[in-house]
């Protein structure tokens, strides 16, 4: 909310500056986000008195003026028709630049020297009016800057009002806060209540629905004449960001900004049957609002109707059919309280957020509605030459009930901690300064029970909808005391024996995985959990199975990703686009899938995603050249499983990842812990990859639970030395290398046997390859003889040839 300091000063005698007030308000919870000076550019422009004004001898339309600007008298040639001797005018001296960007220079106009310029409102940036010069009030001091001469609102505080403080959405509201904070007296704007004509309440009939409008009051104002508002009012509205329109509209806006009560003026001559009804809209009916939009209404909308139909959307915006026009002669001025819940529903559905709806949603003071109505009616009448008819048209169908809250000092103390300086008198004075009624009921009997010592009954003022409970009052007390004055203390956090020795949390486990990945030369990325339906389809996934957002930011972020792949691939592309020679990235994040057994309808599986592309070497020298491939990816997975003390996994070709080919399932026993593979070329191409892209995703929830069951168990060191023999098998290309290893290790023997692939050679153009294994033999009880090892090697070679279609 924009607050003018000058306007505020009409309510409280505050003599400090905007920054000082800003600090106080900020520390009391009304955060001042900035202080602006909308009329700062007018400071160098001063008040001048036109001493003499004569026709220019050479030009009909020009006048030559002598103008006293306080410290000197200037000759100025002026082209405005309305300039005259004796006027106070706005003078720009030579060398000053106007808000319009025009720099005023010394000039000669048809022979007459001109040392400055007399300004119109347009040149001062105050309005579009440039027909004549602006004539200042007679009491403007010669030489004084224009903002002072016009009493402009030149210090504006931008205050962020939290949703609970609807009462602060007005000058009055902030004045109340400031008065309480600074302990200053508050005065309301005074105005005279002149009415004339017969009682209007007899002429207009009013029916309201108290659920929708607990209070609905109105006055009739007649003999009006539409015109622009006087300068001072227009400048003020401008300064706080409200566009001046006409005297009638401006008056209602002015009082809304001042007192926080939204008001609406209907052209009474357009109200049919002299009837006003407030009731729910008929579902399906339409109304064209002031902004020219046709609104389709629902039963939760509040309509203001005349004898024939809707003329306004209550609390939101008036109807075009009852709008104030330049021809309007009499108005019905409405000051009402509307149900915040209905207002909010309507505002959200129609995406119609007006100054009025914003205030009604947050709660408008029912106790101030009548005062605001009178204030606005008399201002409107005064500005438009009309008069207010006596007699309220009114219905307060649901008066506001006063809330009585018991406040115990012991309760306040316990919540705040030790509060030095917070005496009983401070509680009472603070609450009273905020408009509460406070009654000391310490130790009194109530409902047969004795009140505690130091206890009050507090009745909050009508504008404070947020004060309903004891804790709310404690907040008020500590807020005005200053939270920063409460001493600081560290709590002793009680540990619970039942929670000792619990297994590693998921957070800690994932943190260890991240540190492992960093150690394994991977760079961590964090990408959006959202992706697009189209992206999933491009990866060959069924997008209809993914969880979608009802209100996505855009079409390419409209579903929750069922795999990390979209994020990994996007990150790859971003890096290749800027020329990274290699990419080794990892991400730990949730993959989302529909799950009817979950209370949210979604399962969230923690995953580790890996993506590799480009050169294996970190530096072109001295590392050997070569590109990252399957063995790099698989090596990482093996390394991770080893790090987690898990057994070796099986890597089995599968067809379950449509964006990978080859695609491999990673199995630990019967459990599928993830998948790995090469991103299909057409997909890799679209992500700018010139080389192979290898990617894997592992289920961290599963790894976490498997890891909890695994552990490191020490094996005694062997006493006797091993003997090694190599054996080469010639195997058809389709045969899995680890089937040979498993066959060898499966052969029953008194020797401990370990087989390790040490070479894999694929001769060009052949459908066979040579797989060389190094066999390590050992006996636990004695040193092996060479002959025993040779014999065992032969035995193995034969057995493998018998089991598998291989040659030695």
């Amino acid at each position: 909310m924009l607050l003018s300091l000058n306007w505020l000063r009409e309510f409280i005698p505050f003599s400090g500056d905007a920054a000082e007030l800003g600090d106080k308000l900020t520390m009391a919870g009304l955060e001042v986000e900035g202080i602006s000076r909308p009329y700062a550019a007018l400071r160098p422009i001063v008040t001048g008195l036109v001493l003499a004004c004569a026709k220019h001898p050479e030009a009909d339309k020009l006048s030559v003026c002598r103008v006293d600007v306080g410290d000197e008298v200037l000759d100025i040639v002026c082209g405005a028709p309305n300039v005259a001797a004796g006027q106070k005018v706005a003078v720009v001296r030579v060398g000053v630049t106007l808000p319009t960007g025009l720099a005023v220079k010394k000039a000669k106009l048809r022979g007459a020297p001109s040392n400055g310029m007399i300004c119109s409102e347009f040149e001062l940036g105050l309005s579009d009016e440039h027909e004549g010069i602006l004539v200042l009030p007679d009491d403007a001091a010669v030489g004084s800057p224009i903002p002072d001469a016009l009493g402009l609102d030149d210090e504006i505080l931008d205050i962020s009002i939290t949703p609970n403080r609807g009462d602060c959405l007005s000058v009055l509201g902030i004045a109340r806060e400031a008065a309480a904070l600074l302990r200053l007296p508050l005065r309301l704007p005074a105005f005279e209540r002149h009415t004339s004509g017969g009682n209007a309440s007899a002429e207009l009939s009013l029916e309201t629905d108290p659920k929708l409008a607990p209070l609905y009051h109105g006055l009739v104002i007649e003999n009006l004449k539409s015109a622009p508002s006087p300068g001072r009012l227009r400048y003020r509205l401008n300064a706080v960001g409200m566009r001046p329109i006409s005297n009638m509209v401006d008056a209602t806006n002015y009082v809304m900004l001042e007192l926080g009560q939204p008001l609406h003026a209907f052209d009474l001559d357009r109200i049919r049957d002299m009837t006003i009804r407030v009731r729910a809209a008929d579902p399906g009916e339409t109304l064209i609002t002031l902004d020219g939009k046709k609104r389709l209404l629902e039963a939760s909308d509040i309509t203001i109707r005349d004898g024939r139909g809707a003329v306004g959307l209550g609390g939101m915006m008036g109807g075009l059919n009852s709008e104030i026009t330049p021809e309007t002669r009499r108005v019905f001025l409405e000051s009402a309280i509307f149900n915040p819940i209905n207002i909010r529903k309507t505002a959200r559905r129609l995406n119609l957020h007006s100054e009025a709806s914003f205030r009604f949603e947050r709660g408008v003071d029912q106790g101030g509605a009548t005062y605001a109505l009178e204030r606005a009616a008399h201002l409107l009448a005064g500005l438009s030459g009309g008069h207010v008819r006596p007699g309220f048209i009114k219905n307060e169908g649901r008066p506001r009930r006063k809330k009585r809250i018991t406040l115990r000092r012991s309760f306040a103390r316990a919540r705040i901690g030790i509060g030095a300086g917070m005496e009983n008198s401070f509680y009472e004075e603070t609450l009273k300064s905020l408009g509460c009624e406070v009654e000391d009921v310490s130790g009194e009997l109530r409902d047969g029970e004795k009140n505690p010592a130091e206890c009050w009954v507090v009745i909050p003022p009508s504008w404070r909808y947020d004060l309903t409970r004891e804790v709310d009052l404690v907040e008020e007390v500590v807020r005005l005391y200053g939270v920063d004055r409460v001493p600081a203390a560290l709590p002793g956090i009680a540990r619970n024996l039942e929670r000792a020795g619990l297994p590693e949390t998921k957070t800690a486990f994932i943190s260890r995985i991240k540190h492992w990945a960093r150690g394994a030369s991977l760079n961590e990325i964090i990408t959006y959990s959202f992706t697009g339906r189209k992206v999933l389809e491009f990866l060959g996934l069924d997008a209809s199975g993914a969880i979608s957002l009802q209100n996505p930011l855009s079409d390419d972020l409209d579903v929750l990703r069922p795999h990390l792949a979209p994020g990994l691939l996007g990150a790859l592309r971003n890096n290749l686009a800027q020329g990274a020679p290699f990419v080794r990235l990892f991400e730990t994040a949730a993959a989302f899938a529909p799950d009817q057994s979950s209370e949210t309808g979604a399962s969230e599986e923690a995953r580790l995603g890996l993506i590799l592309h480009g050169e294996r070497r970190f530096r072109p020298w001295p590392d050997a050249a070569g590109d990252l491939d399957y063995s790099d990816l698989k090596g990482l997975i093996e390394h991770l499983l080893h790090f987690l003390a898990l057994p070796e996994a099986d890597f089995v070709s599968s067809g379950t990842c449509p964006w990978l080919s080859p695609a491999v399932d990673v199995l630990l026993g019967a459990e599928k812990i993830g998948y790995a593979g090469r991103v299909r070329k057409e997909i890799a191409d679209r992500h700018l990859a010139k080389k192979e892209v290898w990617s894997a995703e592992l289920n961290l929830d599963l790894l976490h639970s498997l890891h909890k069951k695994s552990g490191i168990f020490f094996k005694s060191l062997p006493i006797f030395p091993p003997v090694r023999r190599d054996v080469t098998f010639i195997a058809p290309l389709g045969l899995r290398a680890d089937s040979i290893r498993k066959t060898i290790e499966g052969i029953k023997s008194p020797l401990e046997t370990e087989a390790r692939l040490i070479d894999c050679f694929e001769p060009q153009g052949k459908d066979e390859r040579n797989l060389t294994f190094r066999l390590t033999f050992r006996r636990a009880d004695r040193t092996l003889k060479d002959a025993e090892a040779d014999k065992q090697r032969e035995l193995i070679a034969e057995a493998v040839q018998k089991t598998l279609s291989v040659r030695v």
Partner: protein
Amino acid sequence: MSLIDELEKLLSDLNAALPEISSPAGLDELQTACLGRKGALARLMARLPELPPADRPAFGKAANAVKEEMTSLFAQRRKVYQAQAEDEGLARFDPSLPGRLPGQGSLHPVTLVMEEICRILVNLGFETVNGPEVETDFNNFQALNFPPDHPARDMQDTFFVREGIVMRTHTSPMQVRAMLERGKPPVAVIAPGKVYRRDSDMTHSPMFHQIEGLLVDENISLAHLRGTLTFFLRELFGPRVKVRFRPSFFPFTEPSLEVDMSCILCEGTGRRTLGRGAKEPCRVCKGTGWLEILGAGMVDPEVFAAVGFDPECSGFAFGLGVERVAMLKYGIDDLRIFFESDLRFLKQFI
């Protein structure tokens, strides 16, 4: 010439020959010629039987002495060569050539900051919990005292999954989950994680990270909240950090507070000194001297009621944005860079 003389001559010949030698190979050759199995000394020794038996021990002794002398001459000479060779090697050795990297990955700055924050709070006695990112309206809003159709819901632009299900807009639903899970006080938990808001520009990302803290126990007061958060911010940003607490509004705390800390760049002065004593407003705190860093408050009794805790019990809660802390800590000025996965950015955080 007597054998003894010949022995002497061997030594003088060697002394004469050594300066002529120009390479380690020549030295090896000469050593073989002198001291080898068929070398000059061996040949002389073979002639031992020519001597009368009485002279033989003396000759043997002399021959040994010569052998030692010659061996030592060769060793000295070889040492010179070795020193030369080493000098040459050193001259050729280029210590400026690049090393062979074992490979160095990196952790995302959000992870680094998140772990540091968790470490500080875990040391204070908080336990880490985590929960789902797709959340029920009850946990995300209603139990936290955001009634349906309340303007407070406008404070957080929400992504809706379907009726009653949202992407969590804050980590605060973990307060609800933790209290429901524990059933009664004490509860001292922190909940780090991703949160989602329907907002995207220079300073807003539709996904970002928060850490929530909740302490519920007997006699927990505003003073404890102040103490804990002051301690926390000093641990995170250094002992000179000043902290101030401003009243604010969150539906699930009463009173609610915004926590500001003194600007880490200008140390709370609001001004930065340029060259020659000139000053300009600090760009990090925009001249205010303060940085908004945390939201906090005393748990609202409505929240206790929603999870079945005694509404008279007390506790405090706080939450902070991880990216915001990372931006301050590392001097990052654009939020979007966190989610662009640019290796040139990522590699700076090891």
